[in-house]
């Protein structure tokens, strides 16, 4: 009888896995999968479907237009110009934000008196809502009564109209960099995770501060730098609120007053959706942008093999 029972039993699985059936596994991951499908895949699919129409966002007066929105986009010089500005913005903001947040983290990683206070002060701007931050900077940048021009005046320099072109672009970059406290905290955590014995070994071998930083610290925190670059690129591509908030008007129709230099791709998309009532075309713009972001992220990902150091072999099967 014992022999018969043994014959009917399926080959035994390793004991620790047998407790987890496939059903249990998928039950646990299903909230995320459902969330991804409903909050990411569905909007993507919906936007793609809309991109094949001339839907105006409110009425039932629409029809399928095939790929004509995409064809029009290929010829739309305004859209490509806004994309070029977005690339320029990203090319400036990402390195600057990574470098400055790393610099601040290095400073705040030292054993200084009241370092906790400094960490709080540097982090504080990133917890202030972006609307409040933008209003503050608009007042600072104001030509006639702003703090910045008051300082310039004290230095004997002329007043600058900051919030119009061409300086509006730099005002936008300053506003963006103002909130890099989160990146600083992540960098700080990474720096504190660097084994002290590695740095000490380098010092014993005769390395100076800079060489220790360059050849020990940076490689050790390079996965975090990589994370910052990837998320920075994606977020910079998608910037919308900041240019609208800096625009020379109140909230009503802000998009109509965004200066050309800060008229980034997402502002152009917003304009197509809400000023021009072209939800179909705007959706086509978003889909093309999605592909561009995907490709850019893949390129950054590919480049990581040349500059990101992992302590473990990522290809090794565990």
């Amino acid at each position, binding site marked *: 009888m014992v022999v018969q029972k043994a014959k009917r039993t399926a080959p035994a699985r390793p004991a620790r896995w047998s407790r987890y059936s496939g059903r249990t596994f998928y039950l646990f991951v299903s909230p995320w*999968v459902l969330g991804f499908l409903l909050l990411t895949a569905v909007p993507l699919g919906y936007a793609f479907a809309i991109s094949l129409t001339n839907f105006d966002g409110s009425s039932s007066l629409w029809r399928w237009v095939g790929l004509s929105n995409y064809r029009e986009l290929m010829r739309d010089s305004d859209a490509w110009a806004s994309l070029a500005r977005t690339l320029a913005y990203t090319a400036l903001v990402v390195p600057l934000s990574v470098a400055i947040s790393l610099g601040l983290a290095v400073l705040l990683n030292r054993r200084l008196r009241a370092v906790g206070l400094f960490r709080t002060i540097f982090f504080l701007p990133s917890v202030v809502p972006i609307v409040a931050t933008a209003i503050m900077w608009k007042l600072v940048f104001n030509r006639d009564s702003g703090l910045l021009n008051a300082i310039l005046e004290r230095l004997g320099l002329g007043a600058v109209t900051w919030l119009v072109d061409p300086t509006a672009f730099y005002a936008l970059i300053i506003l963006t960099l103002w909130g890099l406290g989160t990146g600083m905290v992540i960098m700080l955590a990474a720096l504190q995770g660097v084994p002290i014995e590695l740095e000490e070994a380098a010092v014993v071998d005769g390395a100076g501060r800079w060489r220790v930083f360059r050849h020990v610290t940076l490689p050790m925190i390079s996965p975090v730098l990589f994370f910052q670059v990837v998320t920075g690129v994606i977020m910079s591509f998608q910037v919308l609120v900041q240019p609208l908030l800096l625009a020379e008007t109140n909230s009503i129709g802000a998009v109509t*007053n965004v200066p050309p230099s800060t008229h980034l791709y997402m502002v152009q998309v917003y304009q197509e959706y809400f000023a021009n009532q072209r939800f179909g075309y705007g959706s086509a713009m978003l889909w093309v942008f999605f592909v561009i972001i995907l490709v850019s992220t893949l390129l950054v990902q590919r480049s990581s093999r040349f500059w990101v150091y992992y302590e473990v072999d990522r290809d090794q099967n565990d």
Partner: protein
Amino acid sequence: MPDGRAPAPLSRRRFLTGPALLAAGAVAAPLLAGCDASSGGSAGGSSGKTTLTVMYASNELTKEHIAEFERLNPDIAIKLIENDDARLNAMLASGTPPDFVRGAAVGSANNNARGLATNLDSYLDKSSALKKSDLLAVNDNWRWDGHRIGAGPYYGITKDWSQDATLWYNRALFERAKVDDLSTTDPVTYDELLDVAGKLAVRKDGKAAVYGLGVEWQWGLSGPLFSMVLSQGGSIYNDDLTQTDVTTPEAKRALRWLVDLAQSGAAPSSLNPLPDGADLSTFMAGRMAISQDGYWYGGNFSKAAADLQATIRMAPAPVMGAKRVSPCYAGQGAWIPAKSKNKDAAWRLMEYFMAGPPAVERATSGWGLPALKSLLPKLPQDLPYQKDAYKTAQAELAYNVAMPDSPYVTSGNWVTTLNQYVDLAARKKITVDVAAQKVTDDINKLLKQGKDRIG
């Protein structure tokens, strides 16, 4: 379980199939809802009360107004949503629009032609509070007969309005600059206005200490441009509202005036914007001599300091040509979406808000002109500036004309396009002629797209 076997493990393929089907359904459902937004709408409450979803500005339809309306109409409860264009779009697209929506008379042709608004004629015919014979001409901007504004049924009612090209000025700043006061009855020309603005402006260390003039540049240039063109006897659209031409001599002259104003530095413009995007705070601070705003502007001064009340005056809309015009640029009011499920209740709110105590309250405060003839005598005339403004506004009624409005473009389209090219011309990157051609081309492209969509 027979034979003691465990259930077949859920395969990855099977696991993903279900949610994928769910996702596909979820994609299709809103799209189909967008095709024919016939379902939805604000539902009545289970208590027997009708819940009226209202999208309005809470500083205009106040808590007190809502409480009083609900007291007078115990079968209706109001759910107020703060005015939000993006949210309105989403609600309209999903087929669950609000029952009562804030909107402007000028520019309403776009919504009306797209079938988004309810024809109010049957309500107006039966109403004792709102009668067609009592509606001032500004309400004609809500009318749409399928081809043009000003004819056909009403699709909305204006709350208050102004002749928005009129001027408010600070006599103290005129006196300081040794410039004669503007007449409260005879209009200046735009050329004279530019000249006066230059004399009134005061610059110090490269900054504007006093602006000579404000035209609410950051609110959009279409109003001033259209007004100037109409004053010269020109037109903005062709007969069927499908094309524009801003390269006409009249339109180019108006564009040139805007560019000259920006370049003069005498007014806030895209070259030198105001931090809060509006003229009011600068004017009230005594840093702007003239502000081109309608009668409503006077409502801001009813509780201002006595010296400011004593020094401000209203002047007629300037002219650019032989024809005197004094149009309304907006005429804020309300409309009832065609898909509203509670139109009768929404109409009761319309009657209360447009002809009831809130309308009387607005009229007596001087916060804009009432849209009903019967309320005009209630405008304030206690203070000297109010008396003068009353006379000026009454005289301007004779010159009220409808603003050009095509259903195939939005006001936002004009504002965006004009901002872009007037700014370039003001920076001398393009000429006024090129700007005129670019504006014409861009707006005509949008008109064509709108015509294709609406039919």
